[in-house]
């Protein structure tokens, strides 16, 4: 397996964290905070929820990093924690019968919409927003975070075949929407 410099550096930071190095943890937070926040934001659609999820994710990381034997799995492990926190948040929202409102209220991304007038892109964006949170998570992990299907299966705790079929169905769904324009 080939690894990039960034991956090796992250692994080095995780090893240092396992030894209790404060500076390494600081750097790790700096490198991963934004990525985790974007993931949480895109899945939940709420900026404040994304911050809460990121905070809880880091608590989970602090708690479990010493037990992480294979340091190369850190990205998958961290996203797995974030994904579980997102799922908890969405479950909570559903229980309060507010999920639908939250999804339609996803107007935080409105300024971005104005920046890009391309009709096709806009239709794609609104189609993504209408997807269920787990489908959205799938797309983000695949096309934004560049994880392969095996890694996504680990993060979402589902079989790889399920990831492939869900991805295929979601892409078909999006293709149909985009083709209309």
């Amino acid at each position, binding site marked *: 397996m080939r690894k990039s*410099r960034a991956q090796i550096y992250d692994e*080095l930071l995780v090893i240092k964290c396992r030894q209790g190095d*404060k500076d390494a943890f600081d750097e790790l937070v700096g490198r991963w905070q934004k990525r985790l926040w974007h993931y949480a934001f*895109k899945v939940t659609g709420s900026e404040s929820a994304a911050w809460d999820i990121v905070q809880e994710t880091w608590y989970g990381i602090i708690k479990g990093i010493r037990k992480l034997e294979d340091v190369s799995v850190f990205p998958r492990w961290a996203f797995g924690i974030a994904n579980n926190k997102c799922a908890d948040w969405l479950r909570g929202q559903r229980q309060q019968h507010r999920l639908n409102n939250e999804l339609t209220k996803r107007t935080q991304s409105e300024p971005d919409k104005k*920046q890009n007038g391309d009709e096709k892109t806009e239709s*794609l964006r609104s189609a993504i927003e209408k997807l269920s949170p787990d489908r959205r998570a799938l797309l983000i992990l695949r096309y934004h975070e560049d994880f392969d299907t095996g890694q996504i299966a680990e993060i979402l705790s589902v079989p790889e075949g399920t990831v492939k079929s869900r991805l295929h169905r979601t892409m078909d769904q999006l*293709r149909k929407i985009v083709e209309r324009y």
Partner: protein
Amino acid sequence: MDKLEKQLKKVLEKNGVFDAAKSETLRRELIQMWCDKNLLRAKLVFWIFFLLSLGMMVGGYIGLRTTGDTRGMVSWAIFLMIGFNSTILMKLWYWVVDAKLNVQKEVKQLQLQIAELAGKEQPVEN
């Protein structure tokens, strides 16, 4: 990668406004938490281990002094020795874990240097 996938990548990149100030505050909080947790863990491990070893040694010594028969004395002496040896075993365990992490760290640093020498964009063989 087809056209839709490229478009999807582009769309997913543009989303949300990341609050850098909030991020910095959270970062500081997390580092504080990291320090507290590490300190607490180290203190907890030390005291549990210290009290356990001390208890075994004191118990063993009292038992050794109060028991009259040879068999009992041998048993208590073994108990005392275990208490004493556990301090050495604990140090040994810590050294093994630390040495393992140090080796892993050296290997990663070496890999990183190879990757740097190979060039910025070049991936490195694991």
